[in-house]
């Protein structure tokens, strides 16, 4: 029983141990400012990883989130820029319209991937690899290869403001975390996601519309990516065409470290969030300790593989 708890909460324990270690190793780590910094840095990846969790629960994968970050960023920013070169006619528009457009673009990209996966049974890896390339290309075409700068203050406010001292991206991350947990644990749609991933045949026979569920999880993932892209643009004040490159890898890493099975049907958003925090704390800690970012990548690679090895060992024992 103790052993099974240690495995169940292994990642949480790893996160706590890492925090304790860093607290002693560096006096700056456990300051309010640094903690908020870690959370803010984690929030973009965390939001992507939450969307990714839905997809992986259905045995899928979404490689396109990094490209959608960029596409939704430039489309949304073009509606909210004061720079005449990149502005859409009649702009800048109110922030709600700009955000709505970015979200719609993200969900539309997800819908295309999801449709190809659900309707034509194309492996998710291939369908979203296609979208990874296509969305990046569309970003460059749309923005003419140039960044979209000079965003309106209202737009920037969303990425830079504080809510009772807590940065907006962190607030958004927390809200999305709670909402996603609720959807997966307490709604009928959540049950459908777990069933469709755990055994699509059994789900189908039980009257669950499996293709519909598969389509929707990519729409969710795309929407999250769109949202994350706009957060990123709002925080930095401009939307870059090369934003989000390789972000899908960190998002997948957070999901996998968090214990969600790539075989589908098993996993929780809480695990994903802990996984994302662990990556964030690790990056931050290694920064504080003056470890070069090149080394950080190697360490992160080892962590991902170790987490899955732990997971495999657990399954073997069961």
């Amino acid at each position, binding site marked *: 029983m103790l052993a099974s708890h240690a495995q169940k909460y292994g990642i949480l324990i790893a996160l706590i141990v890492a925090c304790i270690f860093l607290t002693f190793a560096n006096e700056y780590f456990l300051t309010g400012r640094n903690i908020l910094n870690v959370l803010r840095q984690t929030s973009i990846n965390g939001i992507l990883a939450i969307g990714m969790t839905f997809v992986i629960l259905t045995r899928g994968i979404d490689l396109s989130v990094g490209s959608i970050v960029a596409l939704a960023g430039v489309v949304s920013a073009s509606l909210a820029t004061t720079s005449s070169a990149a502005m859409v006619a009649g702009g800048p528009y109110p922030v709600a319209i700009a955000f709505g457009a970015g979200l719609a673009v993200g969900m539309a990209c997800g819908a295309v991937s999801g449709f190809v996966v659900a309707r034509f049974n194309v492996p998710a890896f291939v369908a979203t690899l296609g979208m990874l390339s296509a969305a990046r290309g569309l970003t460059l075409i749309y923005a003419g290869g140039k960044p979209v700068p000079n965003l309106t203050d209202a737009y920037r406010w969303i990425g830079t403001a504080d809510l009772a001292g807590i940065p907006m991206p962190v607030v958004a991350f927390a809200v999305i975390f709670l909402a996603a947990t609720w959807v997966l644990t*307490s709604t*009928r749609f959540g*049950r459908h996601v*777990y069933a469709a991933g*755990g*055994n699509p*045949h059994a789900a189908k*026979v*039980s*009257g669950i519309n499996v293709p519909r569920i598969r389509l929707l999880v990519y729409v969710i993932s795309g929407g999250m990516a769109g949202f994350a892209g706009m957060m990123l643009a709002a925080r930095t004040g401009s939307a870059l065409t090369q934003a989000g490159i390789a972000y899908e890898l960190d998002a997948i890493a957070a999901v996998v470290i968090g214990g969600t099975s790539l075989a589908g049907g098993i996993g929780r958003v809480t695990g994903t969030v802990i996984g994302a925090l662990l990556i964030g704390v690790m990056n931050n800690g290694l920064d504080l300790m003056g470890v070069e970012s090149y080394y950080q990548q190697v360490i992160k690679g080892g962590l991902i593989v170790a987490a899955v090895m732990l997971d495999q060992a657990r399954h073997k024992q069961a």
Partner: protein
Amino acid sequence: MTRALLEVSGLKKSYGGIAALRDGRFRLEAGSVHALCGGNGAGKSTFLGIVMGIRQRDGGTIARNGVEVAFDTPSDALAAGISIIEQELNPVPAMTVAENIFLGREPLARFGRVDFRQMNASAQALLDGLHFSIRADTVMMELTVAELQLVEIAKALSYDAEVIFMDEPTSALGEAEADQLFAAIRLLKERGKGVVYVSHRLSEIFGIADSYTVFRDGQFIDSGKIADVTREDLIQMIVGRPLAEEFVKENRTEPTAILSVRNLNAERGVSDVSFDLRKGEILALYGLMGSGRSEIFERLFGLSPDLGGEIRLEGRPITLGSPRQAISHGLAFVTEDRKGSGLVLSADVRANICMASLDEMSSGPVMRSRREAQAAGRMIEMFGIKTASDRLEVSGLSGGNQQKVVLGKWFLTTPRVLLLDEPTRGVDVGAKREIYRIMSDFASAGGAVIMVSSEIDEVLGMADRAIVMREGRIAGEIDRRDLSAEKLVHLAA
């Protein structure tokens, strides 16, 4: 007494303090087929695991040809001439028969190149020698399940195996294919090999085995010659108490038809099927593999496209375009492949039971967990599902209990028509009887059952009427009064 190929005594194994096997005894003679019998949890799998070198024993001895042995890995057992043909075969589907047989020990030509010509020739010689009509250069995925098993047998013999374990080998076979397998088993016997036959199907045991050994609750119960026991004796040994009757049947057919099917077509050449299913009736669909039995079920449950024909439910024409529609019309479908399409193994008992009733278990989009818990509790009690909690994963339950979870899932939808495809496959004798009781009670309460079964005894024991399928069409219909094994087989072939 003839030579003992394998002699096991006092075999012990526990997991975390719980004894799975207390006293495993077994003696296999050359040139014989030995049935290893026991319910789920009797210790058969543990026994097989130890003898095959997959698990390590806590105590006891294993002697091969009179010499004591210990196997650390399956390849040790194989090297000692012990081979197993598992319930679920794991071939490399994209490789040829010959490549599969010689996997990992391919004959090499110069420069380390695989000598395909020699490999194919050796494999073909092996297959021909066994009178298996399989070509060595066929790709595995083109073979039927029965042929895959024959290839496994050939593979075992290519390792010079003398002791061959077969774990539920007929669970995925039709009768004709099973006959092919039995012929191969007889051939092995003639050649002085020892075959250990593990099966829940008593008729097969009485058909093919020479001797038997029964385990129950990890304990050796008895062994002897099949000729010296009756079916009832064997059941009593397996179950541990006398079974009043193997089958439970108290339902009465009423004249009103619930489901009327007219000129129905379905996939794989099923055409012009018409029948009425009456209230309170248990109707058997009998036929060989590929005769169209399962295709009819798939069509009735909206899993395959509408290819014409009329379906009426209590006189009203209905369309069955999706499982969801079928469920809303009061149909329930217990598929033959419990793990493949019945259960979500990674999910818990509660989630599985509620899976086909999520609409009833929620208000709007939100699940009502109390309703779910109550429903699961009700089904667990109704079917006597043995589980410590409804939050345990179903993968940990025995086959019989898993099947009851599937039944619970469907009874929660309050069906009027039950479609049962091989409802007792891989289920032990005790649980089988409980499933028969469930069927009988359901029909008595005004429901109706259509059952597909490859076990003739089950059809004879439970059906009020049998429709026999042959090559996608109805070959005949037999009423319970006239039902006999000969008639079924005659019409089906």
